[in-house]
């Protein structure tokens, strides 16, 4: 790896949203924005990598909403964080990316449709959304990203090192690391 490659400022911890085992060979961290079209396009690629590398790959998602460019990015991130407190982070996360074109066209109504489709209780979610911890969590993710040199979304880190480029570059880098071990 290049010596000047930015490093992940906040190490992956138990507080992160993670899929896969802690003992996985490789950990991939994405800083993403739910309304960002480029993140939406990367989503199926990430799923493919997860299927392909199986237990060797752990995937972590962190919030990086560009709220002025994408006015629905923060409400969407809040919804996913609320879902997380109901142990439904990944279903909500996946729904947001799989249906990005649809809900972004309908604004907050689109998001409400999403929480119903994921099977969350609307009043329960509304209550959770009033907790200050949700915003703090999203902001903490965002600032950690900024300190790691994240400059746009999606931004990927492989075992703490930044990988620029698309899913194909990630696949190559992951394969290299899993073959080494």
């Amino acid at each position, binding site marked *: 790896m290049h010596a000047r490659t*930015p490093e992940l*400022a906040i190490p992956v911890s138990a507080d992160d949203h993670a899929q896969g085992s802690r003992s996985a060979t490789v950990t991939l961290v994405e800083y993403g*924005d739910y309304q*960002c*079209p*480029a*993140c939406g396009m990367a989503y199926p690629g990430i799923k493919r990598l997860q299927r392909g590398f199986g237990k060797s790959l752990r995937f972590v998602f962190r919030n990086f909403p*560009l*709220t*002025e*460019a994408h006015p629905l990015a923060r409400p969407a991130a809040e919804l996913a964080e609320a879902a997380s407190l109901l142990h439904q982070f990944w279903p909500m996360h996946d729904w947001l990316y799989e249906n990005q074109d649809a809900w972004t066209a309908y604004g907050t109504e689109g998001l409400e449709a999403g929480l119903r489709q994921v099977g969350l209780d609307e009043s329960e979610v509304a209550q959770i959304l009033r907790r200050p911890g949700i915003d703090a969590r999203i902001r903490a993710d*965002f*600032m950690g990203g*900024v*300190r*790691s*040199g*994240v*400059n*746009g*979304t999606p931004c990927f880190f492989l075992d703490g090192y930044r990988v620029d480029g698309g899913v194909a570059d990630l696949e190559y880098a992951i394969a290299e690391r899993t073959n080494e071990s």
Partner: protein
Amino acid sequence: MNILPAGSIAPDFTLHSTPDQTVSLSEFRGRNVILAFYPADWSPVCGDQLALYNELLEEFAKHDAQLLAISVDGAWSHAALSRDRKYHFPLLSDFEPKGAVARQYGVYDEKGGVAGRALFVIDGDGVIRWSYLSPMGVNPGADGILKALENLGASQRKAG
């Protein structure tokens, strides 16, 4: 032409921020200023450097720092871009004579005829405390700016 290094006096300038308003660097004496030179308006959104800075204005304000972005685009282009992207900081137009301010700071790209992607952190006395020229296609992010502002704050506290 080399980018002005830390320790240099920041050359003063007066540039249009809108078709009928101007902004001078000297207006910000006593406060910190972040100058962000960038090549062109209307670059793609998702990887947009200015969209990132737009999210960090509160963070910059904590360091008593005002962000000023500068390109050679005209004031009308800036006005349209600012409205479209909901930027909450001035975009200054280094338009006539073209790139004169970018040249003074040593960051004009002669080949492209645009400002390079350069960052400066200037203290309240008008002294450059940190500067960085990013490769043209690389969005430099904001961690360098935040580190420079933190170092500035630490040295100011020491001096005070």
